[in-house]
Every structure is written in structure tokens, then in C-alpha cells.
């Protein structure tokens, strides 16, 4: 089922959580709401689920007005960051809950409930835990049970609030791939909130990047990463080097062909660390820099260079680094393979500009 968000606004006291956000989520897509904490993504998700009411705007489910429909009548199964499993119920009863609380005329017979719950437990590959209690499960198991519980009511939309946020890195990676496969089988429109750009880029069909209550960009993971619409998106999705063009005239010139309208004085150029080529000799449009530090991190080599007083980060493959044989204090020339120039100065972000 498709979801349409129209000009949703929400305030908490004097804090504006959402500024007229509009968004379309097509049927069966897995959409990530991505942004730093406090950007309004969870509020938006809770408004979709009906747990929070918007001050203005509309929510439409499959084209139908749903703004004032109560959460219990929306038929969305919510998945929480901290699972929110019913602690005094067994795993089986947790999953059966949504079926048992249906009004009598809609409630399936006991045998049908048993069948559906065991099907769902099989789907999440935890049928052997049916008689356990939530306290006896690991975090990853709990989240899978929470998912089975949400799916039991055959939701029209599945909102997930930082579903992997409380798990350790390894479990998180496993679980998000598993979620992706599950989504491909079930095809329920799903919206998940995350502050982890890697997670959003890996799992989602579509990424909605949010900042300070506004949508910055909507697009496929590839689109938002390779073609960021704003300085914020550039900085939020991965590491980036920021150059103010009045300082780095040469680089702005390179950028000018992309954005002809920008005059040199007020422009800022963004280059990803892996989009910079290091050369031993000056070439056209290159910038001189001094190698300061070389770190090998897994398959990559990260080089920190100084140009005047500014630090530039470059990522190389190990092969390339071996060919270059960089040493500290060495003079080299940098040339961007790809860069973007924005007219506005970048907003102040946390150090480094990568995910929080």
C-alpha cells in the first residue's frame, strides 16, 4: 500500500520537529528515513503509525485520508528500537497477541492462530523458541520476534524505529540483510528510521535524508550518495573534504564546469576522500600538499595531507598506495576525480561530517 505524506508539520513546545514535510512512499518499497538525531525522522515515523498527531498536513494510506485514524485502526505493525516485547508473555503469545485482541467476529479460531503463529516463527527462523520468555532471548532474537509479532496482523505498512540500533555491529549486519530478504518475500511497504548511513544505503530501495525537520533529498541509495542535492547530504553520507573556493582557487576552477552559476568567492567544493588522486608531479588543476600521516585500515589506506593549514583526507586502495610509496613529509599533488560545488556555505556539522 502506498503512503502519501502531505505538508506534515509538528512542534513540541517551541521546538519545530517537522517543517511541512511531504513524501511519497510507493507500494511495496523499503524506505529509509535517514538523518542525525533530532532531525524529526522518528516523529515522522510515529505520525505515519498514528502514535503522534501532526499539527498540520495529511497522511494518506493508498490514497485514503488517514490523518485522524486511531493507531489501532491503521493496521500498521510497529517495530521498536528496544523491541517492546510483552515481557510476561511467551514468545508464542507475543506473536499471537495481535490475533487474540481482534474483535470476536474477526478473530481467527484457536487452531488457525496456532498455525499462523508457527508459520511466522518459521519465517523468522525461531520456532524452537516459542515457549521462551523475552528475557531469555538475545537482542537479535528479540527483534526478530518483534518483527514476527508485527507481521502477524498482516499490516498494510510496517514502520520500524531504529530496528537495529540496540544491537552490536555483527548482529546488526546480519539482521539487516535478513530484513532485506524478508522484505523481498513479503513486499509490505516498510519505512525504517536510522541514523546509520551505511545501513540506509545497504538496505533501502529509497533513502529520505532529513535534517532539522526538513527533507533534504529523496532518492535511490546510489543517487543520494553519488549525487547529493545539498551540502548537508554530502557531509552526512560518508566522509568528505570541504574546500572554500576563495582559498582554493584552482579547485573551484575545476568545479566551475559543473556549476557555472556559482561565482568563485562564495562557493564551497566537496570532494570524497576516495575521489582524490595523488600524483608525484603537478598536473593541470592539481593542488600541492604535504603527506602527514599514512594509515592502513583494512583494504584501504587513509592518507592525511596538509595544504597550508588545512587537512585533506584521501583514501587509496592498497595497490595504489604501494605504487605511490608515500612517506611522511613528502610533497605531492592532488587532483579530484569528482567534486561538487555548492553556492551556500555548508551548515555546521559534527566533526568529520560522517554519520553520527
Amino acid at each position, binding site marked *: 500500500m502506498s503512503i502519501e505524506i502531505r505538508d506534515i508539520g509538528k512542534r513540541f513546545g517551541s521546538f519545530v520537529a517537522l517543517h511541512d514535510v511531504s513524501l511519497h512512499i510507493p507500494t511495496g518499497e523499503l524506505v529509509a528515513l535517514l538523518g542525525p538525531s533530532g532531525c524529526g525522522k522518528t516523529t515522522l515515523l510515529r505520525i505515519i503509525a498514528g*502514535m503522534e498527531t501532526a499539527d498540520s498536513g495529511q497522511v494518506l494510506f493508498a490514497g485514503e485520508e488517514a490523518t485522524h485514524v486511531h493507531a489501532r485502526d491503521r493496521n500498521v505493525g510497529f517495530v521498536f528500537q528496544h*523491541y517492546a516485547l510483552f515481557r510476561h508473555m511467551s514468545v508464542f503469545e507475543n506473536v499471537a497477541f495481535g490475533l487474540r485482541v481482534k474483535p470476536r467476529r474477526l478473530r481467527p479460531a484457536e487452531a488457525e492462530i496456532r498455525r499462523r503463529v508457527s508459520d511466522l516463527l518459521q519465517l523468522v527462523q525461531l520456532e524452537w523458541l516459542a515457549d521462551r520468555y523475552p528475557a531469555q532471548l538475545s*537482542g537479535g532474537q528479540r527483534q526478530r520476534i518483534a518483527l514476527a509479532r508485527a507481521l502477524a496482523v498482516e499490516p498494510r505498512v510496517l514502520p520500524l524505529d531504529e530496528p537495529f540500533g540496540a544491537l552490536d555491529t555483527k548482529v546488526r549486519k546480519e539482521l539487516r540483510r535478513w530484513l532485506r530478504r524478508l522484505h523481498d518475500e513479503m513486499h509490505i511497504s516498510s519505512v525504517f528510521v536510522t541514523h546509520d548511513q551505511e545501513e540506509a544505503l545497504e538496505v533501502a530501495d529509497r533513502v529520505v535524508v532529513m535534517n532539522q525537520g526538513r527533507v533534504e533529498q529523496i532518492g535511490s541509495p546510489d543517487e543520494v550518495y553519488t549525487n547529493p542535492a545539498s551540502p548537508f547530504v554530502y557531509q552526512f553520507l560518508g566522509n568528505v573534504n570541504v574546500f572554500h573556493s576563495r582559498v582554493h582557487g584552482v579547485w573551484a576552477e575545476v568545479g566551475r564546469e559543473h556549476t557555472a552559476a556559482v561565482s568563485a568567492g562564495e562557493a564551497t567544493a566537496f570532494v570524497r576522500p576516495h575521489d582524490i588522486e595523488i600524483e608525484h608531479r603537478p598536473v593541470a588543476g592539481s593542488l600541492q600538499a604535504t603527506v602527514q600521516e599514512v594509515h592502513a585500515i583494512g583494504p584501504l589506506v587513509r592518507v592525511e595531507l596538509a595544504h597550508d593549514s588545512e587537512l585533506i583526507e584521501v583514501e587509496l586502495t592498497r595497490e595504489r598506495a604501494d605504487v605511490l610509496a608515500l612517506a611522511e613529509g613528502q610533497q605531492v599533488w592532488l587532483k579530484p576525480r569528482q567534486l561538487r560545488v555548492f553556492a551556500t556555505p555548508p551548515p555546521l556539522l559534527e566533526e568529520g561530517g560522517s554519520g553520527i
Partner: protein
Amino acid sequence: MSDAALRRANAEPRWLRHLLLAVGLGFLFIFLLLPLLAVFTEAFSAGWRAYLRALQDDEARSAVGLTLLVAVLVLPLNVCFGVAAAWAITKFDFRGKSLLITLIDLPFAVSPVVVGLVFLLIFGAQGLFGPWLAANGIKIVFALPAIVLVTMFITLPFVARELIPLMEAQGKEEEEAAVSLGAPGWQMFRRVTLPNIRWGLLYGVILANARAMGEFGAVSVVSGHIRGETNTLPLHVEILYNEYNAVGAFASASVLALLALVTLAAKAIVEWRMRRETRMLTANLAAEQN
């Protein structure tokens, strides 16, 4: 270094530990155990027969009956109020929330005698509603309604006080999950909230019950001490004692003391269950961090 050695290194000297222990046990004996023993020795000082006779006395039986009746009437109301107040305070944000929390504690801060007087001033013959009540033939003061009202007032905070921190710690996510799964309000309360708070609720009820049955000051002011009618057990004890009927007074007092012991046992069991649930909850949270 071994665990035992570590413990020895940072423990107090042996004589100090023994002194502290002796002081603690001494106080416990003088202030708690000795009075309890005294109650039972005095009650049985004239033998079993006199003890049983004192309890089978009509007035004593009526006092026990009234005390139980008051508790039975007050506790359900108390549970309703306590759950509703704790629910409102922990699951919603509203203006005046901290004022409500303070107001709930008011009965703890006010002297019971003052509470009794306030109810006299409101419902008594010379009171605010006195003439109207008299004109309509409704009897509140010096009758059961006033006893129930003041007991209600005195015991008001117990259940709410017990539930507020518990429900605050549990948060509202489970309720939100229940609602998102389509549970109507009552189903959510019965299947999710109530099982989560049941031990805390029971604990509050036990404390409220002990207070309801033992309340003296406030009840004394509004009851009128009508023998066989508006005398609760604590009032009955006082009357007998004033009449130099030591055996009768202490026999009735022993019933109250027994009640206290039962309450204590019930409290210990519930506390043990609550600790178990809390352990489960903390295990829950610990697993989340992993």
C-alpha cells in the same frame, strides 16, 4: 588477591562491626519485638479462656466486622484511584502534573486528627453540607460513610506511590506496541499493563490495607465511638483499655498485631516476587545493550 582478602582489607574493624550489630539488634528488640511480646503476654495473662471470651464479646466482634468492612470498601476505590493516577502521570504529559504528584502525597503530610476534623467541618452538623445532609436524612458523620471517607483519604497515596515509579521504569512502549497491533484500550490494560504492574499493585494494596485497618486518629474524630456500631478495632482497644479491661484490650490488640504479622509476611512474599521481576527486567535491558 583473593576475594576474601579484598573484603577483609576494606572492612571495618571487628569490634566496630559487632558494636553496630548489637546497637541495631538492641533497637529492634526494644522497639519492635518487646511490644509485640508484651501484647501477647498481656492478652494471655488470664489464660486461654479469658482471651477467647474477650474476642467472642459482641462488641469486639462488631469492631472486627466494621474494620473488615471499611477495608473492603476502601481498597477497591483506592486501587481505582491509584491505577488511574499512576497511569495519567506516567503515560501522559500534561500541565499540572507535578502538582498532582504533590497532592497525592498530601495525606502523608497531614496529621490524621486534622483529617478527621476537616471531614467534620465539611459533613458535620455545623459543617458545610451539614444542614443539607440533615434535611435529606443522609447520615455521614458518626456513621460508616465518614469512617470510609477518612480511611480513603488516609490511604490514598499508597497504591499510586507504589505504581508511579514502577510504571515510569517500564515506559509506554509495550502499550504502544499493543495499540499498534490493534488492541482496544481495555484489552491493552488487561493483557499488557495489568500483568506488568500486578506485584507493585498488590504491594500497594497490602500497605494500604494495613493502614486502613490500623488507622486510629482520623477515624476516632469522625466515628463517634458508638459501641457495637461505629467502633473499629483500634478504637475498641482504646475504650477497653480506658475501662481497665486489660485482657480485653490486649486480646483485641493481638488481633491487630496478628494482622500486622500477616501483612508483613504477604509483603515479604510480594517483595520477593517483585525483585524477581525486576531482575528479569534488568536482564532484558542488559541484553538490549549487547
